[in-house]
């Protein structure tokens, strides 16, 4: 029931997204107006697809990270993975600007992976009785890395570039400039194959060993998937914080942590919420746009608070 409603909502939002924007585009115009079709094909279509992929994969990455760290208050964009990706792409831009884009992506992902592993090592030394410490350390760690990025960018006179990576928004998405995101979509779908493994890792090392799971291997696969998705998102549309934090919490509160059943819900919810935020961002100050991250921050917080304070249903 929830699934059907969610998918219908997402479909509805997707159609809406195609026809909302600065340039007028009405569904009927598609039948006779060549320019309308062009607009759909080169701008609105890619933008809608980019939002859906970003929202879905960021939400899934958030879930995987929360399982690996065993803490509900972390997400890749604030705990160092996003900043690592930005640092990686900055280094490539400064030192190897002529490298092919896929190689640049690879390096950004590698740096993001390295900063995530360091985060995990730091977190493993924290006392397990203090869950809030993990998210605090994550924010501090992300902040320090972010400061490094800013400093290097300032030194290299690349502050404008940095802005694109650090503040996510979708107005720049055009055909030919977002296709890397399809790789993120593929990685997101592939990581669903390991849903049971991530769920078991989320129950801890002891349970994993008892069930014959190679704990370290699953953690590495998870971090790799998070790093790739994050790096692709940061480079293509920029950092969008909060999605990986709010959406997994909403879904696990409503439907639990059996990831084989809930990861698709997480992906669709993430896509729908980010898409709704993007559409709102386009119309609230029409014809100007509000960055999707700001809108999502407000929207996600409202949904989450409502969930926290709504009477708890006992399943």
């Amino acid at each position: 029931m929830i699934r059907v409603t969610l998918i219908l909502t997402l479909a509805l939002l997707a159609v809406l997204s195609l026809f909302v924007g600065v340039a007028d585009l009405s569904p009927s115009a598609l039948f006779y107006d060549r320019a309308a079709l062009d607009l759909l094909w080169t701008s609105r279509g890619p933008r809608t697809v980019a939002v859906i992929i970003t929202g879905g994969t960021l939400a899934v990455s958030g879930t995987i990270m929360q399982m690996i760290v065993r803490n509900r208050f972390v997400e890749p964009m604030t705990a160092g993975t996003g900043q690592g990706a930005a640092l990686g792409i900055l280094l490539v831009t400064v030192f190897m600007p002529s490298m092919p884009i896929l190689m640049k992506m690879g390096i950004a992902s590698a740096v993001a992976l390295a900063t995530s592993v360091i985060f995990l090592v730091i977190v493993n030394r924290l006392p397990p009785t203090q869950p809030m410490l993990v998210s605090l350390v994550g924010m501090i760690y992300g902040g320090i890395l972010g400061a490094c990025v800013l400093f290097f960018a300032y030194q290299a006179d690349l502050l404008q570039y940095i802005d694109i990576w650090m503040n996510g928004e979708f107005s720049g998405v055009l055909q030919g400039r977002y296709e890397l995101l399809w790789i993120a979509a593929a990685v997101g779908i592939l990581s669903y194959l390991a849903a049971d493994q991530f769920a078991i890792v989320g129950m801890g090392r002891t349970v994993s060993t008892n069930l014959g799971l190679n704990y370290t291997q699953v953690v590495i696969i998870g971090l790799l998937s998070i790093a790739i998705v994050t790096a692709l998102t940061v480079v293509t549309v920029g950092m969008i914080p909060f999605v990986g934090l709010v959406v997994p919490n909403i879904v696990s509160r409503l439907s639990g942590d059996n990831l084989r059943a809930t990861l698709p819900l997480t992906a669709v919810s993430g896509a729908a919420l980010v898409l709704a935020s993007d559409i709102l961002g386009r119309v609230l100050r029409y014809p100007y746009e509000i960055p999707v991250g700001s809108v999502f921050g407000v929207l996600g917080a409202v949904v989450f608070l409502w969930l926290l304070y709504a009477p708890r249903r006992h399943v």
Partner: protein
Amino acid sequence: MIVISDVDYFIGPVKILDGVNLELPKGGISALIGPNGAGKSTLLSLIARLMPLQAGTITVDDLTVGACPNNTLARRLAILPQASDAAPLLTVRELVGFGRYPYHKGRPTPDDHAKVEDALEAFGLVPFADRRLDTLSGGQRQRAQVAMTYAQDTGYILLDEPLNNLDIAASRSLMRVLRELAAAHDRTIVIVLHDINYAAAYADLIVAMKGGKIVAKGTPDEIVTEDILKEVFDTDPKVHRIDGKVMIEV
């Protein structure tokens, strides 16, 4: 049979286990007792390869712990660790279902589903099957954990202080289920217990540990005596024999 040979274990400079040699027979319930810090949980964790062995060897039937593939051992031996952290956000059926992971690796077959239903039935969990663990009482949650271990369908089941936080009704019902598993289903149960009366009442074999060494091993009748309890626990409770059962005064 579980054979433990010359096992030492250090945490930093502290010797937790000191040359442990022990054979635990196949079948029945074996209880490990001893004061806090005697090394019981450490020994159990080493058998279940939750921690790597530092010295000595442990074999479970023909499998050598640490050398045989993780997943092979997962089908032979299951451990229920000390209940510690918050319950995962899963329903009882989902949790028990994860017990089948060593067999299906994420793609459950109808046979796996049947085994899960069987476990729910065996532990009287059918009425709660679709409830989330965080909505259950401590006793029910513990029962669900044991049902997951049961669904793992292993010859050996290790339990680390499963009676912690359970009231007398839940404790007795859990021990009876374990008794039943050992008697009717041919499972071998190794259990760490703090309450010697439970060990005396339900175990076939009691192993007493102190300071990382095995102090005594035998039937409840042989082990639960005032002399041995004094030696192991440094306290002198009175031991009574009532209707052929041993009981200690607390």
